[in-house]
């Protein structure tokens, strides 16, 4: 333990704690900017500086460990002046047109500037306008708002191992950019959107597509239907002033109805369907000597990553479309036939915790008629939050409404798809009972739950011990993919999610996602699961019905046509013409 003094208060804290965290324990919150929970300390913004008696310079509290006997001032005139000056310097090189920024009122720089009481900058603007990168379906990068804090670079490099974003140039010309100042689309970007999730300002955001949805809703010739992903029900509340982990399923249905959607469906339905198809695919691969291990295919960030980096293991990936795309395919076949409308008159919207889903929906493979996308528009949780606010809905006080049919009856197994380990657990609940032809004694597979990067367990299927694994983050996915490539993977089935924590930590979830928030969202999903009347996908009566009425059998011809897909090895074209913001120095 170290005894020290902060602002005339004597405190005692564990050694090795940073001054920032030590102060926090005593309710002294030192402002920060580049610092982000879960990411390594960057210390480049210098906002969190404090004064230590006996030292000439100021030190950054985020990176300096406490020491016995330290006397620290977090608010001396020298400190306050330094923080203010630094913030003014940042503002002088930032597009401060806050009213015309989607991050308005949700911006860490704006908040800092307000906390420090800055009402004018002493410094002249040095901003040089650079072009905006919108050359992809998922993300928008506006370098004029970038404050070079480096969070996106760290998340892209260290959490995802994708190394798409990098600091380029030096001094005042330093920029955050894909290599050689090109577009995101000209690099191996998976569009996971973790960069947009950690950006303190509005420099990297999902591409806003709410206008397209408003237009469709107001078009009388369109039947507009919407699906919501499992993770949405435990994360949207945060966007609307509720605590992390609030379960708001019924409220979302009500809000979507108020907004004007004709039918509100649940992606959980096609998550259950995925389990039937994918479970049968696994059984088929195991029993017929197919390519193993089989890897899940629900996560479009992971699919992009595998196609770009590991073409050798594409045969290992399940051919099942993701639940979003199974929903889209059934909407534009089964549903249109059932309600008797033309495909082109149906408009399908998805609400996803994900930015890569926007990319997925536009893949040419994801169209049953080869002309129109099965899912027309994908909105992130944050975009839906915006629509609810635009609509003036008091979300917190909404009554619950049930999902519409035929895609409204779901199971607990589908709900947990929204977190790491969930797809695996849902699959095991079904595969175990189908193969062993006896009910599971305990349906909770606790070994595959939680935020550990690597999880594994063994299940007995038909008298054979089968090893399965669960990984999340692309850095961990890379390790598991290398294993498969080298032929050293001991597993039969692997679940991969690109984002930390799975979809509840997706790049399209509300800002401020960190380990504790992720855990709360996860806990909420298992609460949803526990409260469901049916907790195994193969026991969902609507699923049974759709096979009877339409699909006939798992892995059958209709399934093959509608619910399965294929993958391509693709090296991104490093196209010279696509040069965007080349910093020159």
């Amino acid at each position, binding site marked *: 333990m170290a005894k020290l003094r902060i602002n005339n208060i004597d405190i005692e804290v564990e050694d090795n704690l940073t001054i920032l965290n030590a102060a926090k324990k005593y309710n002294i919150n030192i402002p920060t900017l580049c610092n982000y929970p879960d990411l390594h*300390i960057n*210390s*480049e*913004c*210098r*906002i969190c*500086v404090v004064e230590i008696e006996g030292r*000439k*310079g*100021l030190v*950054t509290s985020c*990176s300096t*460990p406490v020491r016995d006997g330290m006397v620290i001032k977090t608010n001396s005139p*020298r400190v306050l*002046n*330094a923080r203010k*000056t*630094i913030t003014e*310097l*940042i503002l*002088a*090189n930032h597009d401060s047109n806050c009213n015309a920024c989607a991050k308005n009122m949700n911006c860490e720089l704006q908040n800092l500037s307000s906390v420090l009481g800055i009402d004018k900058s*002493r*410094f*002249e603007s*040095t901003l040089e306008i650079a072009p905006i990168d919108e050359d992809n379906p998922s993300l928008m990068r506006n370098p004029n708002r970038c404050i*070079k804090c*480096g969070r996106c670079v760290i998340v892209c490099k260290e959490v995802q191992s994708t190394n798409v974003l990098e*600091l380029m*140039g*030096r*001094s*005042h*010309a*330093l920029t955050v950019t894909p290599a050689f100042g090109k577009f995101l689309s000209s690099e191996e970007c998976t569009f996971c959107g973790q960069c947009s999730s950690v950006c303190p300002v509005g420099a990297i955001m999902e591409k806003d597509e709410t206008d397209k949805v408003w237009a469709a809703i107001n078009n009388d010739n369109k039947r507009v239907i919407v699906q919501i992903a499992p993770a949405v029900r435990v994360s949207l509340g945060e966007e609307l002033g509720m605590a992390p982990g609030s379960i708001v399923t019924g409220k979302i249905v009500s809000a979507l109805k108020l907004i004007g959607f004709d039918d509100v469906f649940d992606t959980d339905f096609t998550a259950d369907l995925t389990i039937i198809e994918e479970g049968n695919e696994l059984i088929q691969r195991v029993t017929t000597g197919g390519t193993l291990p089989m890897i899940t295919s629900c996560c479009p960030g992971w699919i992009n990553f595998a196609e770009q980096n590991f073409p050798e293991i594409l045969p290992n990936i399940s051919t099942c479309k993701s639940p979003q795309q199974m929903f889209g395919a059934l909407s534009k076949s089964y549903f249109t036939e059932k309600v008797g409308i033309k495909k082109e008159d149906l408009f399908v919207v998805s609400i996803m915790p994900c930015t890569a889903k926007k990319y997925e929906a536009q893949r040419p493979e994801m169209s049953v008629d080869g002309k129109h996308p099965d899912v027309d528009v994908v909105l992130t949780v944050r975009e839906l939050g915006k629509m609810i606010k635009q609509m003036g809905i008091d979300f917190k006080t909404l009554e619950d409404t049930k999902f519409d049919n035929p895609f409204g009856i779901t199971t607990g197994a589908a709900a947990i798809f929204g977190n790491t380990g969930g797809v695996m657990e849902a699959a095991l609940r079904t595969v175990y009972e189908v193969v062993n032809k006896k009910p599971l004694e305990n349906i909770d597979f606790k070994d595959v739950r939680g935020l550990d990067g690597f999880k594994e367990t063994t299940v007995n299927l038909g008298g054979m011990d089968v090893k399965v694994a669960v990984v999340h983050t692309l850095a961990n996915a890379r390790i598991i993919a290398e294993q498969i490539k080298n032929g050293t993977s001991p597993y039969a089935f692997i679940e991969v999610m690109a984002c930390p924590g799975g979809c509840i930590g997706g790049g399209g979830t509300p800002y401020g996602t960190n380990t504790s928030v992720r855990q709360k969202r996860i806990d909420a999903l298992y609460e949803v699961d526990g409260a469901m009347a049916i907790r195994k996908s193969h026991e969902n009566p609507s699923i049974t019905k759709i096979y009877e009425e339409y699909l006939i059998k798992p892995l059958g011809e209709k399934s093959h046509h509608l619910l399965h897909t294929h993958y391509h090895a693709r090296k991104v074209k490093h196209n010279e013409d696509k040069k965007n913001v080349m910093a020159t*120095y």
Partner: protein
Amino acid sequence: MKEMKVISKRFDKVNPLSIQDYINTNGYTFLKKAIKMERISIIEEVEASYLRGRGGAGFPTHIKMMGLAKETSMPKYIICNADEGEPGNFKDRAILEKDPYAVIEGMTIVAYATGATKGYVYIRGEYLEALKIMKHCIQEATENNLLGNNILGEKFNFTLEVRSGAGSYVCGEEFALIESIEGKPGRTRIKPPFPTQKGVFNQPTMISNVETFANIPFIIEIGGKEYHKIGTPSSTGTKLLSLSGNIKNPGVYEVPFGVTIRAVIEELGGGTLNNRKIKMIQLGGSCGPIIPEYMLDMIIDYERFEEFESKTGSGAIIVMDDRSDIFDILMNTVLFFEHESCGKCVPCREGHVQLLKIIDKFVKRTASSKDLDSLESLARVMHQTSLCGLGQSSPTSIISTIRFFRDEYLDRIDHPASN
């Protein structure tokens, strides 16, 4: 006053490329002596000498050596910082080109004392001649069993490699240099951990200046106690000075610590050309303070230099006569740092551009008293909050001129548009 040639004793007297010349002039005698000593006694000798780093910061060398010796994670590295890029400094170049084996011998002794097995000499990209010489000398030393495996038949391995940057000034900063050796852009890291804990490739590393290593054989020769008698109590030994500017005989001179700046300028440098009146000098190079003529009787030692809130111990003296304009010099200096900032931290990245804008107003005589306040405040914030030595020391010329030449600033404010 005469020079005291200890480090420069072989300068222009031997063929720097010839290892035989070096050996004939007592070279490698002290590695042979050191290698028979207890490792800890070598560090104790350095401690007794109180040798301080010659790159500018003046950190006691034995503390670094002890820090590295205590680390158990292998391999351990020694890096010679030969990225001499500070405008006004050229003394390391003289050592590298005129007595390269002394640096190699010094590094080898330190490696033996600390248990390091691998070393780098990181040479400034523009020092093409030094690069060539150092590569040649490392090869010669290796062929003569003075580098490599089982050096001098002992159980001691130490290999040395030359690395060079692409001309970035900030790579002289220890962590930027380490990143550069690793093949990354030259941007510094956060301390702690310090290089002796986690340096190059995250392994324990001692990084010191060329002149520091060149001092090591001499300390082993005469012993720490004798060495301590040279110079002043807080600054022991001799110092190589880079003398430039308006001076009759510019060049590198070696003097014991404690002589006055005036004696160096007048007696070694021969005074100014045409005997012009000295207006001011800049100490330590572009990142050092600019002080007025009346302070020339100040002695050269680390403690005196530290009074200027700056680390100016590299030994550069730039002489400027009465024709020099402060704002010309500031403009030139700050432009240099604005170009060389790595851009990682806010005060340095965004600060230099703003300093330039304000200085420009003084150049054009459009400045107000508010601009003077902003200039001083910004310079101090950069000095106090920048991540590495570059942004911490680059505003020194501004802070010192506001202190010593305030009238010239006020003159520009009081006479708007008189130009």
